[in-house]
């Protein structure tokens, strides 16, 4: 399938593992589960958001996607009322500055279509760094998401194989971080939210390569940036210099509460 090939290419560019293979829905089969009451059907779009697109906020993305849908002429459903808008529901939040190979959004359509038709219409309306890799009927509920996998590459002139070992130890012991919440700052032990976290030091590039699976359900979402902040605080490696000490984080998958089954 062409689109999963594009996903493969993006993953290779970012040097990380692509999302797990899903049970493939036939891209040429019509999704005709139209709700007889509302006259709409819900389509789940899987897309990646990488490169420059990591700097586009959630609100900006919603506005952009709405306009892309209009350009695509796909039959999207609009809410009634004074300020009609298409209804889009996004999966797990993604902060600015984090790339993702595995995002999902649900949108309502008013006519049955195939996954391929949707991708062929919408992808040309979006930049190269924001493309659908699938469009299919939802399998899980949005709230079924339990975990997200991440990969991070950290550059620091003082990073060594020892640093990697220290990081592994740090992420598996209790780790108290100040979390910014709506009701003020709170000190929380984030270690229960880290399912796995393993770092290797790449001698060739001098980089630390972190792979982690973090809690991503609604109530216990852990922003991967906390892992970087913890390394900065506990190991004294500050990643704030575009010339020598920098990092990048990529979300590589969304998983259910068992931490294994891919969300789709």
């Amino acid at each position, binding site marked *: 399938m062409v689109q999963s090939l594009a996903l493969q290419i993006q993953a290779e560019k970012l040097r990380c593992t692509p999302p797990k293979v899903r049970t493939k829905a036939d891209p040429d089969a019509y999704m005709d589960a139209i709700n007889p009451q509302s006259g709409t059907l819900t389509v789940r779009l899987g897309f990646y958001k990488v*490169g*420059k*697109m*990591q*700097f*586009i*906020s959630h*609100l*900006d*993305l919603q*506005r*952009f996607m*709405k*306009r*892309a*849908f*209009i*350009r695509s002429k796909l039959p999207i459903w*609009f809410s009634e009322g*004074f*300020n*009609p808008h298409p209804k889009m529901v996004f999966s797990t939040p993604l902060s*600015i*500055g984090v790339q993702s190979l595995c995002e999902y959004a649900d949108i309502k359509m008013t006519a049955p279509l195939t996954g391929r038709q949707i991708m062929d219409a919408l992808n040309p*309306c*979006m*930049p190269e*760094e924001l493309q659908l890799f699938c469009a299919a009927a939802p399998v899980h509920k949005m709230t079924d998401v339990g975990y997200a996998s991440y990969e991070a590459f950290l*550059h620091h002139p003082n990073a060594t194989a020892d640093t990697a070992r220290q990081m592994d130890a740090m992420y598996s012991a209790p780790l108290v971080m100040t979390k910014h919440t709506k009701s003020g700052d709170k000190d929380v032990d984030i270690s229960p939210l880290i399912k796995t976290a393993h770092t290797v030091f790449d001698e060739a590039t001098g980089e630390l390569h972190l792979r982690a699976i973090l809690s991503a359900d609604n109530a216990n979402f852990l922003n991967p940036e906390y892992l970087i902040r913890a390394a900065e605080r506990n190991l004294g490696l500050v*990643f*704030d*210099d*575009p*010339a020598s000490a*920098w*990092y*990048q984080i990529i979300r590589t998958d969304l998983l259910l509460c068992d931490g294994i089954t891919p969300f789709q």
Partner: protein
Amino acid sequence: MNIDQLLKSVSKPGRYTGGETGQTIKEKQNIKCRFAFCFPDTYEIGMSNLGIRLLYGALNREPDVWCERCFAPWTDMEEAMRKYHIPLWALESGDPLTAFDIVAFSMGYELSYSNVLYMLELAGIPLTTAERGEHDPIILGGGCCTYNPEPLADFFDLFSIGEGEEALPELSRLYIQMKEDGSYTKEAFLHAAAKRGGFYVPSFYTVQYHEDGTIASVTKKYDDIPDRITKRIIKDFDHSYFPENTFMPFIDTVQDRIMLEVYRGCPRGCRFCQAGMVYRPIREKSPDVLARQARCLYENTGYEEISLSSLSISDYTRLPQLTESLLSWTNDARVNLALPSLRADTFTKELMERISSVRTSTLTFAPEAGSQRLRDVINKNVTEEEILRACNVAFAAGKNQVKLYFMIGHPTETNEDLAGIYDLSEHVIHAFYVNKRADKQMGKPNVGGVQVTLSVAAFVPKPFTAFQWEKQDALEVTQEKQQYLRSIITDRKVRYNYHDAKVGRIEAVFARGNRKLCAALIEARKRGVRFDAWEEFFSYETWLDIFAAVGVDPDFYTTRGFAEDEILPWDIIDCGVTKEFLLRERAKAYETKTTKNCMEACSACGADKLGGDETWCNRSLCKYKQKN
């Protein structure tokens, strides 16, 4: 250098990424002229500018020209760029501005001048033409501020005077041709451009001054360049270039919608208004062309709003045809139609019904002066009855917020005129309650209380207006007037906003400035001045210090009345409208006499000599009038 890491450390990184839908990317090896279009303000402001969209598209139609965009980086980015020695770059290619052949700035506001120097410095380009060499980019200026280009004369190699959709592609063709035939030197290129007309090369003109600081004479370097530079206009507006596809910002900007330019110019002739003079003659686009362009833009962008933009939209002769053909599909497509520049005298129930889909509950009018006498002085031909009638239409349709724009400091103004501003708002409030009583009797739903917002600016005398010779009120006088108005407004349904008089004073210095202000701008750069148009950065005291340091007296440009026989700094530019006409208008202002607008009668302003189809000047529109 990891640019992503840099972007993570600044606010609104989406300002700096480029990569928007609709941007133009070209293969560098096919390009013979690289053009950087700079806007001396933030991305959000610049991307809202219709001019950039037009010129970007017009230049990129040339296969061997590549026009890119560049905006003023916010101060957090400035800090990062200086720290890591990153020169200012263009968004599309990411290449530094020094890699470009032509770097153009569009200036729409005098307070953005300090940002031009800020951007040049961040790009590592020497500020003045004298310091720049053969291999530095050519610095080109344009935009409505450059009808008086003199305060910027030392920094720009040349200015494009007037409308650029045709002039700028021609200029890049000239550049390419001279590079190819080997005749190119910077001097030869500028000379060739100057000879064509429409381009002003300040270094080719030397200004001599009298002892009192006024201009004695201007001498030319070459005999074959014009004495005065006549502005360029698009003659056939229907067939002029219009971008049917356009770049769309990812992040929220000020004007993130389709802007449909319905006509250029303004038939009205308010005596303080620069735009109303320098964009003459009026040129209309036909409704068919507009409807097609709107549809095309909608399909290419997916925008949810179309804004009909013009200086005074209700003066468009074929507005009913246009709105009808747009409304035939916009409602179904859930596209909102906005008419932002309505005049009270032409605001009718029919028009209101047409745009009833507008979501806002606010209606905006600009009476500009509080009394009929003063409105006659400024030639704002609108009466209190017309304003109240327009408000009534709006109130009857359920609106309950009115915004009124005024300007204080007009010539001949007295406290009575100021009190008139408040009286007018009280009359509007009264009209609302009369309406409400009627509504109640008819059983219509209650719309709540009324709110009148007064937005009061201070008069800035501008070049090419009938008031270009006038004194600006002294700072203290303006502040007293603002306070007087504050003291008489007692009704809490009236909200009173006024502009900082200090900003208006600095604006006036540069609006009517001469070449002596170049030194002030250089000094301002030394002191790190930038983003003057932003309240949090504007410092009046810094500007006073700068003027003192370079020996410039701000009173010379503000509270001094300019003599009618004085050579004005902007006399070098011919914008069509003649000095004789402006003098006639000035005399009539003092006699409290109004002048008819172009639709009623031609007052021989002189702009007709520039030509142009579909203008009032040649009365070709009359055939449409008869049909209506």
